[in-house]
């Protein structure tokens, strides 16, 4: 079938997937003891009448499935309600944190590709040489290093000791030089492991491709090695990397909680964790739904790019 129809079908399946995700999230969060009113009230001596009134306002006293249906009814019209803990509009809350999350996630993703792809090519081409060994050790280090440790080390060396960058985000808009400068360290922290993964994957993919008959033909034709690798091999070798890159985009967007914490970056990861701890159901549902949408779309994008890169793949 044509690409257009394929995309259409995939988008149609998205809806039941998202519904399933939301049902699971709702159930799991409601299994946790306590609810938002408990978080609000704490140990204060609040009259049962008041507590009941607040519960009723947010439908917290009703059976779980009923609460879910009420939420679904509103969610379909993109109304995600109010947080019972802060009384603020959920969409506005997420909207205020989303740009920051996208900025950091996007930057880390681009870094991962910008470092991973060239590194992967170099180590594949120079296999067995010192450059390759170095690359392998670097990759291992990158994947094995816990990102909170890396973040703290970078913070202490470059911010505290050398004073080159701030410890906390500057008081400037997101799209400014000052913020971009600040984002260097968190991007490196978040992107390192991903870059290492991309590099390793691309390296083995290229090595495999270099054994193929068409490569021998191309070399026999007298094409420079450079053209052989970059023009012919790369296009085939990139397929697995495209898969990984697509999935990573979704994961990076969902919030690098720890990195956000270390660099005090106002992203969605910390928002999600706090919401869970406070049983802030509407906010949890909305964020998880957003992550679900991101992952589904990322997967779809990956499959489309696959089809573009490799004309043999048709659905």
């Amino acid at each position, binding site marked *: 079938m044509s690409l257009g129809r394929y995309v259409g079908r995939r988008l149609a399946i998205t809806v039941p997937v998202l519904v399933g995700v939301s049902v699971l999230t709702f159930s799991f969060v409601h299994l*946790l003891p306590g609810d938002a009113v408990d978080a609000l009230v704490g140990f204060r001596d*609040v009259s049962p009448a008041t507590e009941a009134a607040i519960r009723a306002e947010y439908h917290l006293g009703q059976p779980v499935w009923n609460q879910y249906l009420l939420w679904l009814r509103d969610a379909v019209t993109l109304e995600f309600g109010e947080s019972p803990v802060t009384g603020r509009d959920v969409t506005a809350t997420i909207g*205020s944190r989303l740009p920051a999350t996208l900025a950091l996630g996007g930057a880390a993703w681009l870094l991962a590709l910008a470092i991973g792809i060239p590194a992967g090519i170099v180590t594949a081409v120079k296999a067995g040489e010192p450059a390759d060994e170095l690359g392998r050790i670097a990759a291992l280090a990158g994947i094995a290093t816990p990102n909170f440790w890396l973040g703290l080390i970078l913070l202490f060396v470059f911010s505290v000791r050398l004073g080159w960058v701030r410890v906390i985000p500057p008081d400037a808009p997101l799209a400014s030089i000052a913020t971009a400068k600040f984002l260097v360290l968190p991007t490196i922290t978040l992107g390192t492991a991903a870059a290492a993964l991309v590099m390793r994957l691309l390296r083995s993919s290229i090595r495999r491709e270099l054994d193929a008959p068409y490569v021998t033909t191309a070399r026999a034709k007298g094409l420079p090695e450079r053209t052989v690798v970059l023009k012919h091999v790369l296009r085939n070798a990139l397929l697995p990397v495209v898969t990984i890159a697509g999935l990573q985009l979704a994961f990076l967007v969902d919030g690098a909680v720890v990195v956000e914490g270390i660099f005090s970056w106002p992203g969605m990861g910390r928002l999600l964790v706090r919401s869970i701890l406070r049983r802030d159901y509407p906010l949890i549902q909305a964020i998880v739904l957003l992550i679900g949408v991101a992952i589904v779309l990322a997967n779809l994008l990956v499959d489309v790019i696959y089809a573009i890169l490799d004309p043999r793949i048709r659905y």
Partner: protein
Amino acid sequence: MAGNSVGSGEHNRLRRRSFLTRAGALGVAGLAGCLSFDSATADGPATELIEEGFATADIEPPFETTIAITQGEERNRFAQLLQSELNGTGFFDVEIESRDFGSHIESMLSAADTEENAIFVASWTGGWDPSNYVTMLFHSEYQTPNGLNVGHYENETVDEYIDAGLTETDSDDRVEIYRNLQQELVSDSPASFVRFREATHVWDGDVVSDWQTYPLQPGSYYAVYAPWAGVYTDLENETEFVGDLGSDVSNYDPVKINGTVSSQATALVYEQLVGIDFDGEVQPMLATDWEQLDATTYRFSLREGVQFHNGEKLTATHVKRSFQRYEGTTRESDVYDWYESSTIIDDHTIEINCKREYGPFETALFNVAIVPLAAIDGELDLQEEPIGTGPYRFVEHESGNHWRLRRFDDHWFTGDEAVPATPPIETVTLEIITEQSSRQAALERGDLHFSYNLPSASLSDFEENDDYGVGRRVSGGFDMILYPCYLPPFSEPSVRRGCNMLVPRERTLENVYHGIGQLAYSPVSPLLEDYAGESFQQEIANEYVRST
């Protein structure tokens, strides 16, 4: 070891598990740097008490139980020290279980109903009145889930003392009542008090020359400008003060605020009828004068010329309706526990009627923010923009990023010898930083002028560094162990007394908290010197905890 002398011959077999646990526990105690022999002598009377209790309750040692804690390195280390002490007696076989904060609270609230077999480690913060430290925790009316009496402790004498303390208005009599109450609580030990916490403030000495440490966290930033307390701060070559907050501000409306950080952020925005200053003395704020007309009625004269940030002028109507506003909200007990009604005499005079004689009256007034009528009537949403009469007005809150206030030029204070009429600091920016290491790093780099509650391990470094100023004051917080009084053998006071004597307070303070804090033997914080000053704590310790 004591364990072998207990029980009939059949039960004398050392069970392998408890033997290994004890050996391991002794190892931990040794590694903790003090296989001190004063704990061995304290063993004697403590173990005897426990033995007595076990016999009365007809329980065979060792009794298996759990120490329930929240996550965190410090909590874990304290729990390990306690575990080694308890297991060392041979009467207990203790495990440690850590949970996330929400689940920990949940389990405490339902513990008695499910008869959970656990000892809970928890923290509590009281305020300026002794009733804050005991009522919710030990009065039988506040047994969970209606309060924090987790162990479902019930003691008529304690209830009577607590009730008396709430209705007695004479301060000398109150001191007497609370001292007796504390004696009773320590001798019965429904909980063991371990450590009183300290408010620790660190500031950049190059920018901030002098800073006063307010002992209660919500008031940390009063030092910026609090004319009613005679305190203010000036900066060197700067008009913007950059402090921090340990988590994001969630609510701005006084009737909705449920976290310390939200109170901290709005402390300079809202004002109350009276204030409690840095020394615990009541000071006039929006009220200039007051007198008690009879047991339950007080007449207040309100300050003239007070303006709200939205231009309204303060009148008695504002006061009355600000109080009434609490009804039907999660904070209604702040007011309706004691407030009956109020009568407006004229624009600047109001009478407040209490339900009964109320000891903590003035402290309670300090909790009620006076807000503009526009907010009360619904024209303004305080959740969008907090508006009060304070010296600073709200500018912006970037979620997860920072909270900013700017000087309010029409503040009522006209200046005196101690404090200038205009606050020297023009802008207050509080950066929201959740990670403790990052707060410390930001202070070291100079991105912050001030931080509070930094890790205890780093405090000594700052104290030794001349570039920084450090302020430490005992605050209203304490760490404690709550016993499940609903479950034998903890239903026996002698068992609890014995455990109380075994709590490794000194070692915890030194090794886990690096000396930050004070040893706690009774619930009321030494911040309230009249009720629980150091000498009183020593008295209690000598009588009930230390073996002579």
